[in-house]
């Protein structure tokens, strides 16, 4: 679409930012990526997201769209001609939204607990994390994607988590693939898509960010600080 101005306010290791980048890539949308420093948020970010002051923010022709799953749905509706992400049937769409919402509600707290805590608290987080992944494996079943034959909303919602697996495994001293082989197989399959491989952060860079956060804040206070970083 000529004359469109699309800007994405983003943070490199943020899984939520990655979701939006994948969606934009799926649709072949050209955009300007602005990397935010969350310790020193830009005036643009504060103006565009005054309520939450968080990334990602998509700015389309000067108008802000907020919250990663809402942004992905917006992208799907505006650039609807290519690679639809939401199912066309209303019931299937409701199911997809349910699972995307489940991921948002359930995955990120235990995920954060794996790298931000230690001892018993960390063990509990690991256990919960694996349980959630197993539920998702159940939903995936034998399908190549959560969307069935086509890469869809739930795949977009979940796949950025894969870029953090190395950090989780190193911090938590465990292997996700041994407990959730199906999910890792799905992730590797998704990585064959250019939109995904180009949009996911490098796992070693993610791990470096985790180490930086742990050092900067000290492990005890990290869970409060995390919410600032949306990580």
């Amino acid at each position, binding site marked *: 679409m000529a004359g469109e101005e699309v800007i994405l306010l983003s943070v490199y290791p943020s899984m939520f930012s990655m979701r939006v980048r994948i969606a934009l890539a799926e649709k072949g949308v050209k955009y300007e990526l602005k990397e935010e420093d969350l310790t020193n948020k830009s005036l643009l970010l504060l103006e565009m997201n005054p309520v939450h002051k968080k990334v990602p923010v998509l700015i*389309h022709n000067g108008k802000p*769209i*907020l*919250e990663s799953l809402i942004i992905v749905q917006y992208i799907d509706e*505006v650039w609807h001609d290519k690679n639809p992400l939401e199912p066309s049937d*209303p019931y299937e769409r*409701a199911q997809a939204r*349910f699972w995307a*919402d*489940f991921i948002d509600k359930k995955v990120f707290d235990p995920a954060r607990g794996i790298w931000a805590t230690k001892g018993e608290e960390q063990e509990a987080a690991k256990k919960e994390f694996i349980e959630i992944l197993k539920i998702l494996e159940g939903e995936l079943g034998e399908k190549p994607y959560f969307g069935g034959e086509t890469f869809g909303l739930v795949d977009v919602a979940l796949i950025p988590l894969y870029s953090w697996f190395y950090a989780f495994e190193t911090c938590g001293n465990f292997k996700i693939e041994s407990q959730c082989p199906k999910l890792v197989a799905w992730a590797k399959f998704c990585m064959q898509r250019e939109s995904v491989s180009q949009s996911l952060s490098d796992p070693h860079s993610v791990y470096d960010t985790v180490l930086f956060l742990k050092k900067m804040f000290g492990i005890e206070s990290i869970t409060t600080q995390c919410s600032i970083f949306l990580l």
Partner: protein
Amino acid sequence: MAKEDVLLLDFWVSPFCSRVKIALAEKGVAYQQRGEDIFGGKSELLLKSNPIYQKVPVLLHDGKPMCESTNIVQYIDETWPSPPLLPSSAYDRARARFWADFIDKKLFDAGGNIWKTKGEDQAAAKKELIQILKYLEGGLGDKDYFGGDSFGFVDIIAIPLTNWFFAYEKFGNFKVEEECPKFAAWTKRCLGRESVAKTLPDPQQVVEFVSMMRKMHGIE
């Protein structure tokens, strides 16, 4: 559409169930309703239809279950398009979903913190609720409804939660109208709609329910 095609698994005081009932009423959809005994023992149908959360509301359409009230309201809007609840432009829809998400993340829990606590904790909870309502007033602006001239998606997501305000005000000893008059005016406007007035339980009954919950939590 025959009445038995649409079934709602319900709990009378749940504002989340009220959202679904208001949406169905706005669309003129006939449906059956089955009250769940949340404390006594959830039905097999509920546990089978919502194995992840085991919560109401669940909407079964031709036997196919849908869970999470905001999700269900969107499904209702897409399946029975008239009158539309979500705006027509993609940008306005994204704004509507943002406010619905904000309300879902913040409002009910903030209210819960008021009736579940006392002293300093309660004072902090009241402050938080008022801040949330002020944000919502910002979203409302000078419009009659969040959707503009017509009652819509965000209004449906928000209005049932205000049904519990009487209880928050009683146990928290404050008045929403004094702090957020714009929000209070919007509330009155929505309560004037038949779909809302006929759906929401009597606020006094909600107070009694919350009072019972406080005893259960050992607060009173």
